[in-house]
């Protein structure tokens, strides 16, 4: 039996104190000074233990990060000198999609490699936009769940990036009468993509490539950023080429297992030429996720392509549209177009843009993707705060340029370890043991509009507000 796939995580603390959510405020002039009951000494998380450091050496106070907001110091101080505020910097973190909560959680997962666990039930809004308007199903009694997370049952998260024959034919001696294309598997449905902003120093790219190598997934990378130092990872790199420039990168193609070529009308005709450059080369075609994506995907699926890779924008929205739809609806459109034309099984669909949390992976697959790519989350794992200062040529507050390979790679591995375990939780609850079985399985999901219509419709009538 082959060894079970496992992502090996290791605690890797951040280099800088992350932007904390809360901070206590003290009105020191009211302090009794020597009441002997000082709550700072009693904090059960010990957050004031090294309080003197930031006084001495102008460090950020660590309790901004470590405060767990139990409010005991506020409520127990004999003089009531404490209050608490939300760190103004935390409020400003990220943007409306990559919000402070996502940045904070991603950071914690990259630190610990653990699934985020907390008590006291759910704290968020009832329903939200995008992926937040669907729930995943669970199994009860007659459809058994799978006990995957602690390894008691094996759940396979592997997907393929290679094309499949549409039908098999056999000779009389039962040997295959058709050419079966080679199979290319990755053990997780998450691929990496070079982010389109950020301090993409050699160290950062190396860290991402090394992490891809360690967990055996693939990384999409611009060929101009390909350096000698990345050569050892060439098996895990997918250079993103174009029709015009691929001839300049024939060396690179020779080194790669898989390449991507950007969509252009007539690109189908280039596929054979590319294949002739290297035997067994896997080819993905990259294209924007816009209104034409579904019809294009049908054309390309008929050609000899392995994988179709669609790019939504940074917030997971359709591109080239004034009224963009969210990636979840777009995945449905492309997937169903291929299903309706009975060609879905031939190609693989990978989607990029807006994949920010582990649940997005599961939900994208339910909508019909084979796999997804992560981009900004890789930077956030390396402590990026999504402040976009680098876009203006300003310095990076967390010195991404100085990231060390071992640290950076382990942080990304940790994040993926945590994500994969969360995927196992969700799949286990659904009773699925194969990520490939999850693809397009909308029957194992519940959608806000449907639930409202089915359960509230008969009671409250027609919905007047969407």
């Amino acid at each position, binding site marked *: 039996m082959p060894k079970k796939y496992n992502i090996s995580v290791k605690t890797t603390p951040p280099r800088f104190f992350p932007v904390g959510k809360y901070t206590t405020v003290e009105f020191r002039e009211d302090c009794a000074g020597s009441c002997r009951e000082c709550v700072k000494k009693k904090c059960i998380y010990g957050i004031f233990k090294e309080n003197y450091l930031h006084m001495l050496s102008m460090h950020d106070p660590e309790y901004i990060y470590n405060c767990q907001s*139990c409010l005991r110091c506020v409520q127990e*101080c004999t003089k009531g000198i404490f209050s608490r505020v939300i760190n103004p910097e935390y409020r400003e973190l990220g943007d409306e999609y990559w919000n*402070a909560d996502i940045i904070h959680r991603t950071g914690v997962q990259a630190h610990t490699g653990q699934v985020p666990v907390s008590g*006291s039930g759910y704290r968020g809004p009832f329903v939200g936009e995008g992926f937040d308007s669907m729930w995943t199903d669970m199994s009860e009694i007659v459809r058994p769940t799978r006990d995957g997370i602690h390894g008691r049952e094996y759940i396979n998260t592997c997907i393929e990036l290679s094309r499949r024959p549409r039908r098999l034919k056999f000779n009389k001696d039962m040997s295959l009468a058709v050419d079966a294309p080679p199979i290319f598997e990755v053990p997780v449905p998450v691929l990496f993509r070079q982010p389109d902003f950020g301090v993409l120093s050699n160290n950062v790219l190396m860290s991402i490539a090394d992490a891809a190598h360690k967990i055996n997934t693939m990384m999409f990378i611009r060929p101009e950023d390909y350096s000698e130092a990345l050569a050892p990872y060439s098996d895990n790199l997918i250079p993103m080429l174009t029709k015009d420039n691929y001839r300049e990168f024939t060396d690179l193609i020779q080194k790669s297992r898989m390449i991507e070529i950007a969509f252009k009308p007539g690109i189908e005709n280039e596929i054979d030429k590319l294949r002739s450059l290297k035997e067994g080369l896997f080819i993905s075609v990259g294209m924007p996720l816009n209104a034409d994506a579904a019809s294009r995907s049908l054309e390309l699926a008929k050609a000899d392509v392995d994988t179709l890779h669609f790019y939504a924008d940074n917030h997971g929205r359709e591109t080239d549209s004034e009224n963009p739809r969210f990636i979840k609806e777009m995945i449905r459109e492309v997937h169903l177009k291929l299903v309706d034309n009975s060609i879905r099984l031939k190609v693989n669909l990978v989607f990029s843009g807006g994949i920010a949390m582990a649940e997005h992976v599961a939900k994208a697959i339910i909508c019909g993707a084979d796999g997804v790519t992560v981009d900004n989350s890789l930077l956030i794992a390396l402590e990026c705060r999504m402040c976009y200062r680098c876009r203006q040529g300003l310095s990076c507050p967390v010195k991404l340029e100085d990231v060390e390979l071992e640290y950076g790679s382990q942080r990304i591995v940790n994040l993926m370890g945590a994500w994969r375990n*969360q995927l196992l939780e969700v799949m286990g609850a659904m009773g699925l043991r194969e990520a490939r079985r999850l693809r397009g399985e909308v029957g194992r999901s519940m959608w806000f509009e449907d639930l409202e219509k089915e359960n509230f419709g008969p009671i409250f009538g027609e919905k007047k507000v969407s």
Partner: protein
Amino acid sequence: MSDKKKNFKLPKGVETPSRFRNTIGKYTIKRSSACISCGLCAELCPYGVHQRYDNYSNPIRPKDHKCIGFKCKENDFFCVDRCPQQALTLRLNPILDTMGDYRWPAEMLLAHFEMAETGDLPKVDLEYDLGNSGGGFDKIRFKTADPKNYIDISDEDIDTSVNLNKTGDGRPEIVISIPCYGGGMSYGSTALSVMTGRARAAERLNTLTCTGEGGYPSELVPYKDHVITQVATGLFAVREETIQYAPVVEFKYAQGAKPGLGGHLLGEKVTPEVAAMRETVVGSSLFSPFPFHSVYSVEDHKKHVDWMKRISPRILVSVKVSTPTDVDMVAVGAYYAGAHIIHIDGSYGGTGAAPDIAKKNIAMPIEYAIPKVHKFLLEEGARDKICLIASGGIRNAMDVAKAIALGADGVVIGTAEIVALECIRCTNCESGRGCARGIATTDPELSKMTTEEWNEQRIVNMYLAWRKQWCGILRSFGMKSIKELVGRTDLLVHLDYLDEDERVKYQPAPQKKMII
């Protein structure tokens, strides 16, 4: 029914102040050093914000949480205006920004602290009926009642009881006096004083509480008539006698906090006592298996039910499931297998440690599941033969009433009970030494932060306050019993399903962006 139960009378609320010296209020009132300790404010304030003891003449820090705020300005006892030294300042308390979340906003937390302290509804203008979640219960309202229907009867004459056995199978008809019982929180997840406090409160209120899956500590035996024994996948300390103690046995097939996953007790909370109870190893995390590996069909499930019924002739069987798409089928299956209670646990609730991804994403919210199951049981002709209990994200008295109007007979409450014990939902129940506020912890020091008497009275107080709200609703609709409210969806409206001119007649759903 025993004589004790026949003559049952609801207890009285007893003032049970906070454990903490600095209480948190919606308003904060500060006294400056200009104070000359004349004591006028203490004489004036009828709410007890300013306190003064005969043998102590220095000014004492005001009790912020009692202050009714700016509306007091109209009163001639408004302390800020009357203070001869202008030493008092009244402000909105900025700390509220940092408390609570979309489901339990700060004001709902503070109001429940107040109810648990006084046994009455808060006098401060706090919003405790609606959360900020922007959907589900927070958008459902009771229709404005026709004043003609109002009946003028006292709370004592209103029946809020629920019969848990409607099957007529000869087993006891257990009647609980409020439409709520306590959810399972295991030995190991909460402090022992919390468990016993909840059990004592259940006895006082003539309702039930539940052991959770972590075993049956001997300290609960004195209250055994009010303690449900939970049989969960870990089967910790499920023994013949613990089944025989119980009036109701609950099979936990799934739980709303983490639907589709087994119970979690992280290593740090597995102390020697907890490990001994569960017959496991100290410090080793306990992830209960999932599912019951002995149940893969409704027939297997019936075997479970029969097994329990054989062990004790007096017990009722409750089947706790979560809310998958086919929750209605599961409920009917449970009925045909001979269960007395079908308990559906929605996905937004729970108290225990759970992966965040599960809490947010797996299974449907209870607001959808209740009408779904209720309708299906009606169509199957089984509704009047089984008790439908809902839980998971039912936060306050109005949520309880809405859940009942949607079709449940009663509800199970977990979070609100621990909020009554001053949980502020910081969600760190599972890590390190556990709850910093001494509720969900097994740490030898922290678990001594509360006493069982205090816990008991706080929970009793909260339910007494809730009951006042239920009685108010029932009276306004001309009902004498909460049973009349079951399934009355015609009394409910949902804001999103109303025309604009109708919608403005109802309180809008709070919508505030929060940092959580």
